[in-house]
């Protein structure tokens, strides 16, 4: 009897050991990436000593061999401006649409919901060529408006889908009570449903902001002049520059500077994100 327990204990110890080894092996690359990122950014690429030369873009224009990095603040400002525009437009369109899908009755609702599901899963990258052609015809290529519209459009199905889930969770009797208490249908939306959905709306705004903040691809294909450059686009240009020698010191410094707001935001919204991972409420077990 006690032999069995000893064997079980041994097994547990071995198992714990194996599990931890596996995890360390699998997580090691991630940790190494971050380590490499931070150390490279504070190492002078020529001499190999620790220096903060790479972070010069915070204060002045940096002249590297193949590329000039302007002082970072105007670019940061533009990036934030772009992200805010996208967030506002996305929220203003997505919130009413999600409410309608969740709470209103209209002809063709089933078809439209299937469409919502379809476009939520459909990859927008495949139709970029047609989108480009569309913008050309609307005279919106090379304009900020064009990029904002496309950026918002690509996020909308996903955001409406997620927001609808949040609206679905609001009990119907809030609206019923509000109707009896003297509200019109719109009044219930404005005074009762919206305030109860603020956490969901906040999540969507964070998603939209971070997506727009990281956007470089749309700028690459839709913008030709250098008038509109975001941080991400700048980094992409550095990375794909034709010159052979890349200054990784400068790039990693830039990358860290770029990543800080993202990391902060994600830390703040951890709890909400866990809720969304629930696949729209589908029971798993």
């Amino acid at each position, binding site marked *: 009897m006690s032999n069995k327990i000893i064997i079980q204990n041994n097994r547990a110890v071995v198992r714990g050991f194996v599990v931890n080894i596996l995890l360390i092996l699998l997580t090691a690359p991630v940790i190494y990436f971050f380590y490499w990122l931070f150390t490279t950014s504070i190492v002078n690429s020529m001499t190999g000593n620790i220096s903060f030369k790479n972070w010069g873009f915070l204060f002045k224009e940096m002249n590297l061999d193949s590329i000039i990095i302007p002082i970072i603040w105007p670019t940061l400002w533009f990036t934030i401006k772009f992200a805010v525009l996208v967030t506002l437009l996305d929220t203003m369109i997505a919130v009413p649409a999600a409410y309608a899908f969740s709470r209103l009755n209209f002809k063709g609702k089933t078809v439209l919901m299937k469409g919502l599901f379809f476009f939520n899963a459909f990859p927008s990258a495949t139709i970029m060529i047609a989108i480009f052609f569309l913008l050309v015809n609307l005279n919106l290529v090379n304009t900020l408006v064009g990029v904002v519209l496309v950026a918002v459009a690509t996020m909308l199905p996903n955001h409406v889908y997620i927001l609808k889930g949040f609206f679905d969770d609001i009990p119907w*009797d809030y609206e019923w009570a509000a*109707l009896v208490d003297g*509200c019109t249908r719109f009044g219930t939306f404005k005074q009762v449903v919206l305030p109860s959905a603020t956490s969901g709306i906040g999540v969507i705004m964070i998603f939209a902001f971070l997506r727009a903040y990281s956007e470089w691809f749309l700028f690459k294909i839709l913008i030709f002049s250098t008038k509109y450059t975001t941080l991400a686009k700048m980094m992409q240009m550095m990375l794909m520059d034709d010159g052979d020698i890349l200054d990784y010191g400068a790039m990693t410094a830039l990358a860290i500077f770029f990543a800080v707001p993202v990391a902060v935001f994600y830390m703040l919204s951890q709890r909400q994100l866990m809720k969304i991972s629930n696949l729209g409420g589908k029971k798993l077990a």
Partner: protein
Amino acid sequence: MIKIENLLKTYVINQKQNKVALNGINLEIKDGEFVALLGPSGCGKTTTLMILAGILKPTSGNIYFGDKIVNHVEPKDRNIGMVFQSYALYPHLSVRDNIAFPLKQQKMPKSERYKRVEKVAKSVQLSELLDRKPTQLSGGQQQRVAMARALCKEPEYLLLDEPMSNLDTRLKLDVRDQIRTLQQRLNLTTIIVTHDQEEAMAIADRIAILDQGVIQQFGTPKELYQNPANLFVANFLGNPPMNIIRGNLERDGDFYKIVSNFSKIKVFRKDKSLNKYLQKKIALGIRPAEIMPCDTNDKEAQFFDVTLVEHLGDRILVKMENSNEGEESYLRMICSNIYPIRIGDRIPVKLKIESISLFDLEKNGKNIFIN
């Protein structure tokens, strides 16, 4: 006065199927009356209430408030107050703003609003809680806030959707009394939906029992209890429930008996009106309190074997059967604990003749003695 005329409500379920929720409801509620809509889940009582509130609209039929047709009048224009099962207090507003919410929709100026709120809050002992948020309140407190919110705009009708089902038993009794007193003092026409028959019997002036979208009977608690219109009503009211014995009606000398596969029970009635039911499927209903032990020599005595005895304080609940084949037809009897009844005893009992109900099973359990 509220009048419901031939109310029909159907739903379309996705693949073009229709579900009939209400199948012809007719009801007339007098001013100042307290009516309960009672029935099992899915019977249509909440649907009826929602249509009265205006949240749902009738498929066909008419609803009158007074002498005005209000079928498509919006809830906000019906001058009603409503309390929901979950209270539906707005989570982002304080208690004060919750109660003031209806007044705010009426565009009452702020100071006047809050003055009214203070007044109402005092009458339900909520004055110290006005600044709290709903999540910081207990269940009973939330219920009072919901009532206050429903009443502060001084509505003409009060609708209650199972407002006490989330409270514990002791609190339920207190709240029940409070609602009753309030309703009588304000002379407010009130309709309550509940699945708890005890609650309905205690609180309402008249009860409408629903099943599958149809009103089975509408009357005072006493009428429903003593003269149930059909088997469903008889079964639904009363705790412990009415004894129901199903079988065929046959003659037994001068009298009748119900014969089923497992037992037979004598019906000591002499009137010949039962002749036309001979050989038909009949259910006999007798409430546990209407059976009593009697003398062995009593000419109405029937013998039963006791299988269970439960002590209920000053009374006992006896479970007994008169067949040795199985439990298909046992009777429950409640009587004083004076009688020395034990498990295994074979006792003589008699059924009070006036309290026997007979239900025609071929006509959906309709009570034979009621037109």
